[in-house]
């Protein structure tokens, strides 16, 4: 897996530097001073990185498998900041040192290729700002997604037009052909992502076969494929993008961990808590309603570590869903490796899947440690938060550093648990963190 990961990182780096290599190759037009040329190169570099952004979120299964698609989305976020900084630097240098070259701002009199450049810049800034501050700006998820795709697409198209229109560094015929090829590949990617893939999803619908209430305003939503084989395999703990009450073309999909075991395929279950606009409606979903899936994704699975001598799950609230999938699957396989489940909840009544976890503990070598913030009278278990002291009390001292850990829950909990495990001497590569708060 590591070899494959390095190969993909190599391909990615090549793709990022390719436009700059093209820029440097062959006869170059005369330079126009260091800062001018530096600004131009920064523009090309930022542009190359923006182009890669589309490929990063295209969810290519083969390319994302060694890393987990969640981390690729995070990478996409980091890169966006760097690419934006480069493009802003490109503009800032010109604005500070060569203001006369920028000409008029008024699009009616300005050179069109400079106007589209400015349009690209505005689109890129808005794309990043609306993503980084989505919650702060209170932008609903669907509105954000539609505007994200629109802004990024318009921004990139405008940037391509800007480079082509200015044309100074792309004038050599072979450079024109290469830039045309890059643009064409980007267009094909868009068509595949926004048309071919949703079309394929629409041809492979699922039906809702059960909507079961669980504790803590949560639901189990069960789907079965309608007229096709469905997902034929997944690793327990992986997740899917689910579309309900909408077309796969409509960008209404949301990522959810699968809660059922792959042994139960073609049936797939999700554990969903009422938290937002979309999840708040789950309880009103009727049997027989159509759903669409894009699955499976992620590396948050016991099957990613088949050699591990045992597993520990550190879970907060509805973060239990991927752990349920893993526990159910390990039970179905008769796995006898030692398991620990640290499960933090606000109160005893909020413990989702409580009864089934008890039942699973009877079939597995599983020790469950409930941690309640608001414990009922007479509670003798752990209270408060999942902290270092709790982990230390319940982890076997001799095996602690060899277990594989899965952390899933609210981000502050997962961060605190990770820090606590590191303090207890658990190596970083034994700690898996599911990152599901993507925007």
């Amino acid at each position, binding site marked *: 897996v590591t070899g494959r990961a390095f190969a993909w*990182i190599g391909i990615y*780096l090549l793709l*990022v*530097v390719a436009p*700059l290599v093209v*820029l*440097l190759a062959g006869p*170059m037009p*005369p*330079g*126009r*001073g*260091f*800062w*001018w*040329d*530096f600004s*131009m*190169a*920064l523009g*090309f*570099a930022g542009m*190359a*990185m923006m182009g890669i952004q589309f490929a990063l979120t295209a969810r290519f299964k083969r390319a994302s498998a060694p*890393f*987990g698609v969640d*981390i*690729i989305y*995070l*990478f996409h976020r*980091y*890169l966006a*900041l*760097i690419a934006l*900084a*480069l493009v802003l630097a490109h503009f800032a240098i010109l604005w500070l040192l*060569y203001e*006369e*070259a*920028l*000409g*008029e701002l008024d699009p009616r009199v*300005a*050179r069109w290729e*400079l106007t589209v450049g400015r349009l690209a810049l505005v689109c890129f800034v808005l794309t990043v700002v609306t993503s980084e501050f989505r919650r702060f700006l209170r932008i609903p998820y669907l509105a954000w997604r539609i505007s994200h795709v629109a802004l990024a697409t318009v921004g990139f198209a405008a940037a391509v037009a800007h480079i082509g229109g200015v044309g100074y560094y792309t004038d050599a015929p072979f450079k024109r052909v290469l830039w045309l090829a890059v643009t064409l590949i980007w267009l094909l990617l868009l068509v595949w992502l926004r048309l071919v893939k949703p079309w394929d999803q629409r041809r492979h619908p699922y039906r809702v076969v059960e909507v079961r209430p669980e504790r803590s305003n949560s639901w189990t939503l069960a789907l079965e494929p309608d007229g096709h084989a469905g997902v034929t395999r997944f690793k327990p703990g992986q997740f899917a993008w689910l579309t309900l009450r909408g077309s796969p073309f409509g960008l209404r999909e949301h990522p959810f961990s699968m809660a059922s075991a792959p042994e139960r395929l073609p049936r797939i279950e999700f554990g969903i808590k009422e938290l937002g606009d979309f999840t708040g409606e789950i309880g009103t979903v009727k049997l027989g309603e159509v759903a669409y899936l894009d699955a499976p994704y992620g590396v948050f699975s016991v099957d990613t570590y088949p050699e591990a001598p045992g597993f520990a799950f550190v879970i907060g609230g509805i973060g239990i869903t991927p752990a349920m999938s893993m526990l159910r699957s390990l039970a179905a396989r008769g796995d006898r490796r030692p398991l620990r489940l640290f499960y933090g909840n606000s109160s005893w009544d909020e413990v989702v899947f409580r009864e089934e976890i008890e039942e699973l503990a009877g079939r597995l070598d599983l020790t469950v440690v409930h941690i309640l913030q608001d414990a009922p009278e007479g509670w003798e278990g752990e209270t408060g938060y999942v902290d270092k002291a709790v982990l230390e009390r319940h982890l076997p001292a001799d095996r602690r550093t060899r277990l594989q850990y899965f952390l899933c829950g609210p981000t502050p909990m997962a961060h605190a648990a990770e820090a606590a495990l590191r303090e207890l001497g658990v190596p*970083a*590569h034994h*700690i*898996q*963190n599911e*990152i599901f708060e993507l925007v």
Partner: protein
Amino acid sequence: MRRRTAFWLAMLTGVLVVLMALGFALMQPAALPPPVS
């Protein structure tokens, strides 16, 4: 762990492309005056 790797790979990419941009600017032959719109 993966989070940190992603961060550093993003930084590495940024440094790499800025270095290439610097290289490009330094390698440019004789300077023409910049254009005026």
